[in-house]
């Protein structure tokens, strides 16, 4: 058994260390604030660990290289921010369609467009879910501390390999540059993609497999891996057949939807029989946790549901907690994105309020308490 190690790290650094611990061997990217330290550190650490770092000409090429490396059998990833994430959307769809495991870290900054390069936001929630065209499911994780930057990056790689899908980690400009202690666990669960066990002639790279995910050969293996963004059959041959298209679409969504219990579940903090529920995620979950204590001092009993998986949205867990309260408050650094999902699963049972902050500042515990007073 390996001993735990304590380090004092920045959020971006923790992402890189998490990636390496998960077995990442390839990074392609185009540096952009506030994600740049990830590229910088990868350029140092990946070669030291026998991996490869490439700075590409732009973000379109970066994710293309990441997909290529993953098809070659390497665990691969990139990091970017809003403008770069927008450029990646087309090939992100390619990775969904061709079922290519990879991790995209989006360190959110204030937008739209080039916005403000150094200020945080939580405004890419919907883009990370619906950014590329077509109908699909995607996994999006959201850390709230430097510790979770590490843990959820590891988890992002594990889930990418397990589900053969791109996984997005939504960080933000505040968390990226925040420094605090991280405990690096000595023993870590690392998942690797399943390799084909059948004779090469029988290999179906897009078959239903166990749990709707087929094994994955690498380029150069005897098992032929055909890759296309077109609708394809189980062998990987493109087709315009309606029934095949329907099966493919439903399998791609179902492989994630039907097994979403395997994704990081929300954490509950605060009073068990709270009168008001906070639903928070990312860096704001910290302010929400502090707000629970301040609210209690003010005589308001509050619970917090911290989301760690944003997509697929944890409908069941959120509904369960909403049923226990009459009112809920969603604090977020956007004009109201997760609050739409909370309202959707709520079905009119509780009264849902939004605390929206869009002046580039981080929502503070005091602001949450102030809003709680109004709501109560």
């Amino acid at each position: 058994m390996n001993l735990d190690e304590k380090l004092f790290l920045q959020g971006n650094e923790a992402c890189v260390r998490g990636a390496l611990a998960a077995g990442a061997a390839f990074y392609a990217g185009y540096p952009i604030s506030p994600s740049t330290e990830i590229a910088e550190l990868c350029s140092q650490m990946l070669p030291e660990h026998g991996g490869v770092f490439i700075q590409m000409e732009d973000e379109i090429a970066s994710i293309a290289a990441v997909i290529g490396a993953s098809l070659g059998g390497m665990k691969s990833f990139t990091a970017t921010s809003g403008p770069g994430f927008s450029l990646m959307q087309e090939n992100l769809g390619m990775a969904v369609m061709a079922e290519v495991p990879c991790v995209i870290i989006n360190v959110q900054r204030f937008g739209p467009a080039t916005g403000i390069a150094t200020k945080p936001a939580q405004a890419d929630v919907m883009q990370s879910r619906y950014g590329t065209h077509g109908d699909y499911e995607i996994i999006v994780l959201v850390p709230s501390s430097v510790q979770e930057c590490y843990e959820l990056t590891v988890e992002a790689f594990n889930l990418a390999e397990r589900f053969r899908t791109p996984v997005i980690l939504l960080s933000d400009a505040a968390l990226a540059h925040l420094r605090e202690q991280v405990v690096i666990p000595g023993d870590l669960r690392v998942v690797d993609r399943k390799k084909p066990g059948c004779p090469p002639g029988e290999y179906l790279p897009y078959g239903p497999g166990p749990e709707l995910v087929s094994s994955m050969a690498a380029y150069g293996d005897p098992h032929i891996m055909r890759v296309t963004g077109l609708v394809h059959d189980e062998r990987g041959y493109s087709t315009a057949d309606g029934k095949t298209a329907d099966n493919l679409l439903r399998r791609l969504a179902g492989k994630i939807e039907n097994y979403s219990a395997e994704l990081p579940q929300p954490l509950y903090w605060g009073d068990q029989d709270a009168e008001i529920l906070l639903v928070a995620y990312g860096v704001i979950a910290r302010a929400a946790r502090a707000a629970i204590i301040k609210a209690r001092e003010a005589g308001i009993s509050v619970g917090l549901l911290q989301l760690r998986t944003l997509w697929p949205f944890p409908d069941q867990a959120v509904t369960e907690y909403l049923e226990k309260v009459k009112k809920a408050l969603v604090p977020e650094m956007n004009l109201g994105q997760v609050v739409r999902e909370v309202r959707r699963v709520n079905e009119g049972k509780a009264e849902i309020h939004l605390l929206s902050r869009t002046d580039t500042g981080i929502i503070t515990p005091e602001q949450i308490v102030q809003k709680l007073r109004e709501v109560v």
Partner: protein
Amino acid sequence: MAKAVKIALAGEGGQGVQSVAQIIAEAANEEGREALYIPNFGVEQRGGVSVAFLQIGDEKIGSPKFQTADIVVALSDRAVRRTSQYVDGNTTFVYDSSIEGIENDIPRNAGRILAIPAVETSRSELHPRVFNIIIMGAVIKATNVVSEDQARAAIEKKLGYKFEQNPKLRELNFKAITRGMELVEKAQ
């Protein structure tokens, strides 16, 4: 347990407030305390106002930013104007005595106001390069968040490779900490 000590350091980009905050945070972490540091800066490489928010305590620290600080250190005229919002009656407000044109901007509501000649001391006695280390000494004297020994160890960890090549730099940096501490002592 005592509440976390909240520190805001502000200066012009390039003055080194972020490095100071990071070294103090690392020193506190080494001493087994809870430490959190978050920078705030604009898109400029140099010349913008750069603020470092630092919290050191004995319990896990939640929200990275705070509304009022226990100590605010401002190292330029713009930094003085920018950081007066973090001052209340319990705040120690420290600024460099060479800053001009701020007579009306100094937050008079502060619990204590200390003017220290850090720029002057670095120029006349030490070296402008260790200006921020003088500030570091001032901060640890005013807050007691880390011991002087631990501060030295943290600097050694950060700059040890430079000290190997030029041992005089070590002496210069350590002297800067001590002078920074003395400046606060004298101003109190």
